[in-house]
């Protein structure tokens, strides 16, 4: 089992307290300054936690109570830092040979050549790090980390993509802990997703589940659910599997909420991409709310519309073009898009 329970205070900015297992490719996702990099550094052994216990393959790397704190070189953690750390005075091949220092010389060269080939670095093997592309430097750093024969791979946010992660997992069967700010990458490549904010785990689980079903207001906000409203359950209908929810200024039909009573407070979250907007002049749509448009910000493919009452909707640019002459608006909340927190 590979497991980390880490507590560390860095006053005044951060108080880190996390407890999680690392299995397969585990992704840490969250805003900057939330302690993700610090987690990697404590596991690699560069920062000492105040309390906790770190296990790698059932071997203890750190235990505050038993006063065990292995130095980084004995932890068998492959570490790819956020900043490029290929040794600048060595060629890429020498960098890799530095990592493969155990074993007979011929065997070392063979392993290095194999790794260069696997990460498509053979053409730049004789170049110094400053002469190669950032993407090649990243692949070089990964190849070097893997040649150190790690039992756990720690990857900090360096612009990893799905293809590179696939190559890594073909070359390395062990657990990988990835720090990333790319939610799409988490869904595409990770086995587990851990949301981290302010040094705490907000939610964890299979990426699809976490992304679809945020459990708290914090998780919803981290996952881009810009619409979070607090309201009251006005009615519950188990037969129709629906509920009537009342918020400040509007009411919606929501999914049935088991385990809650009429009159209890409830928060719901809706992703802006799940909302639909219509002209206010046409017939009132089911579960729609009339609202006035406050602001439009156009992105590359979609525009974000901000309505009165703090409602945000993402609309494809062509859809916005079609509705640009609307004098008034209504925003439709599809029932299945409502997430009860």
């Amino acid at each position, binding site marked *: 089992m590979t497991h980390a329970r880490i507590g560390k205070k860095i006053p005044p900015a951060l108080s880190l307290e996390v407890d999680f297992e690392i299995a397969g490719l585990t992704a840490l996702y969250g805003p900057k300054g939330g302690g993700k990099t610090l987690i990697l550094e404590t596991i690699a052994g560069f920062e000492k936690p105040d309390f906790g216990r770190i296990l790698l393959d059932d071997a203890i790397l750190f235990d505050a109570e038993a006063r065990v704190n292995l130095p980084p070189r004995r932890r068998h953690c492959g570490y790819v830092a956020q900043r490029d750390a290929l*040794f600048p005075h060595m060629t890429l091949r020498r960098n890799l040979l530095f990592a493969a220092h155990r074993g007979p010389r011929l065997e070392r060269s063979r392993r290095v050549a194999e790794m260069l080939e696997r990460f498509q670095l053979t053409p730049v093997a004789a170049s110094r790090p400053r002469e190669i592309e950032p993407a090649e430097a990243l692949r070089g750093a990964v190849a070097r980390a893997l040649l150190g024969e790690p039992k756990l791979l720690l990857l900090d946010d360096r612009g990893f993509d799905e293809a590179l992660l696939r190559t890594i997992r073909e070359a390395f069967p062990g657990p990988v802990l990835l720090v990333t700010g790319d939610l799409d990458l988490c869904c595409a490549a990770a086995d587990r997703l851990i949301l981290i904010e302010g040094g705490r785990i907000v939610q964890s689980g299979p990426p699809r589940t976490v992304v679809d079903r945020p459990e708290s207001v914090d998780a919803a906000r981290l996952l881009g659910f810009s619409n979070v409203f607090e309201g009251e359950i006005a009615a519950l209908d188990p037969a129709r599997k629906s509920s009537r929810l009342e918020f400040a200024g509007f009411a919606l039909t929501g999914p049935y909420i088991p385990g809650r009573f009429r009159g209890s407070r409830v928060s719901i979250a809706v992703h802006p991409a799940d909302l639909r907007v219509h002209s206010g002049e046409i017939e009132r749509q089911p579960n729609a709310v009339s609202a006035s448009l406050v602001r439009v910000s156009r992105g590359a493919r979609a525009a974000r519309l901000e309505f009165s009452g703090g409602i945000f909707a993402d609309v494809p640019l062509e859809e916005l073009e079609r509705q640009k002459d609307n004098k008034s608006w209504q925003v439709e909340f599809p029932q299945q898009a409502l997430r009860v927190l």
Partner: protein
Amino acid sequence: MHWSLWLVLRIAGLATGISVVIGLWLAFVLTNRKVPSDYSFLPLQFKVVLSNAVLFYWLGTNGPSGAGLWPLTQAGLVAAGVISVEPLVLSAVRSAFAGLDPGYGRAARSLGASEWRVFSRIHLPLALRPILGNAASMFLGVIAQLAIVWWGTGRISK
């Protein structure tokens, strides 16, 4: 003892070389212990005390041939040179190491490298240039100090 340019260069070279070796060793020892680098300037005070003492004995009434604290031998002069430049070399070496990106050391350690391997293969080659530049100026410094003794001996006594 014959004063010649060659002798002065040799003494200065030896003193600088020994200082650099000691400086590297001390820097290696100190980086792995938590000694604040501020204290590395402390030995600078010895230099003043020692050079005064040396000058008094050599240029005092006893003269260079008299029995002083330091006999005026090559070894004695090298020792004096080492003592006078060592603190400067050490602080220069330490600041050269401190200026390195800590990421290189971390990467090397996580690859299983021992402290000695990190020092000799990563930190030393990366910091070599500033260290050598500093050693060159220390070399000139020792020559300057020897020049005082060289020109001073035999002229000031009486």
